[in-house]
């Protein structure tokens, strides 16, 4: 089933990537070509096969003891943000209305 421009617009909204009309047209072409390339996956007969979500699935994660230790310092965590206030990141209004909240 081919993806329409409206389908691709909805995916872009979900992915939080603003695309202009020209980008949307090019992206729709790409998405259909890329999905067509994935047809061998659709055609696979793998009902009885267990999935492998991780390449070292036969090994176990190596866990450390649950002990408190020093983490990233607050100043370092905030260093790359454009807007901060005290210990927090500042963001624009979440529900609308404008300005930093």
């Amino acid at each position, binding site marked *: 089933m081919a993806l329409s421009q409206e389908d691709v617009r909805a995916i872009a909204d979900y992915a939080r990537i603003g695309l202009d009309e020209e980008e949307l047209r090019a992206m729709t072409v*790409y*998405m259909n070509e890329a*999905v067509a*390339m994935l*047809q061998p996956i659709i055609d*696979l007969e793998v009902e009885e*096969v267990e999935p492998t979500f991780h390449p070292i699935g036969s090994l176990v*994660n190596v866990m450390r003891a649950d002990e408190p230790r020093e983490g990233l310092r607050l100043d370092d965590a905030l260093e*790359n943000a454009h807007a901060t206030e005290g210990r927090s990141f500042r963001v624009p209004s979440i529900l609308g209305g404008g300005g930093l909240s």
Partner: protein
Amino acid sequence: MSLLDELSARQIASGVQAGEFSAEEVCRASLDAIASRDAELHACLQVLEELALAKARELDRDRAAGRALPPLAGVPLAVKDNMNLIGSRTTCGSRMLEDYESPYTATCVQRMLDAGCLPIAKTNMDEFAFGSSTETSHFGKTANPWDAERVPGGSSGGSAAAVAAGEVTLALGSDTGGSIRQPAAFCGVVGLKPTYGAVSRYGVVAFGSSLDQVGPFGRRVEDVALAMNALLGEGHDPMDATSQDCPVDFLEHLEDPVEGLRVGIIADFIDAEGLSGEVRSAVLGAAEALADQGAELVDVSLPNVADSISAYYVIGPCEAFSNLARFDGVRYGYQEPGCATLAEQSAKSRAHGFGAEAKRRQMLGAYLLSSGVYERYYHKAQKARTLITKSYERAFEEVDVLLLPSSPRTAFKFGEISDPTQMYLSDMFTISSNIAGNGSVSVPLGLGEDSGLPVAVQLQGPAFKDRRLLTFARAVERGFEAEGRVAPAFAGKGGEL
């Protein structure tokens, strides 16, 4: 007087230890080589002169105080710009992270520094490692040192080019679908993707978390072995739960004979559509070189491996979409000014911070993970991964190593492959070992008989048998005249020691 680009890592470290030259002199030679060569090459995004000189002086002080120096003392290192290093930016080749200051240092980088390497430069890469040519970098393209009109491969193209042009002795790259091995092949250097879990990923900006693995580039197999000792030496990294405790001495069996060992040849790969004649004949030459040293060549098959590309282009974009969702312009990264709402700021920051290929991969991942689509693609791709892994396991019951091409062809020209789905086929021989997780290495075989450009062979081994893999790589290296070779257009330009 010697030239830095003629020395191996071992020669540099022993020269510094013996006082033949100081670490600072080595550092200045590497910086001089970059000053003389990188304007044409553009392998480096940042030259870390202060950091490198500080490290060199620390080593020189240690030596003056009579302390034994670590095994890579004074060896110039370049680091792909998706690895954090305090005192440098980590841009991932993206406008999104153009001004991002590393808040900590990646374990892989720290371990190389602890082993005595000098952090000379951060290297160019495809944006967020999405690509096979380094053309998608926001900061411009990197030239192939063997032909400035051609790509160095990617995504770790800057690291491969910096080593091939003799600017540095070692470099780190990351490999999600071939991003170490393909640029190593295009630039005529050795590039190792270790087994997934061998090297810590802590501090490396994630692309595909079940696929990414860090590894070294060098002009000699021995240099790569020394880098692996540094990367694995301290074992498990508590900062990465997938990092395994597998330290071994990669030098210990490097010169072992391959006599009596079994090398698997996969007819489907040797006769693959799209494989160029000169690469095919070079790969068969590498097989012959191993046979001349007493190895037994065995025909093997890898059923299901043909599904690797489609499985990869499901799993990779899905993991990338998930990983790159963090770039919303709030905590770090490009932020669109003047937005009224958080949603608008996020969508515009991502639209203008990411380049075209980064957007394409995330869009594909977002679609493939959506309700009703997930079951048809993502879940089935992970089942394909089971079949591919089992194919490898069965093959390695019969042979010690698999021999195949690294890339279907030699380096292509800038702009030659403009269709993204065609570009994806550049990784047709490398992707399967990211899917299965086992280690692979690309070894240079000199220059192709038609193009005159570097050609290479890929060796793939069982999981966590990377030391054995380098024994085979060294055996191949013995049979060809590519060892230690710097691209002639750059050899000896600056870098006097």
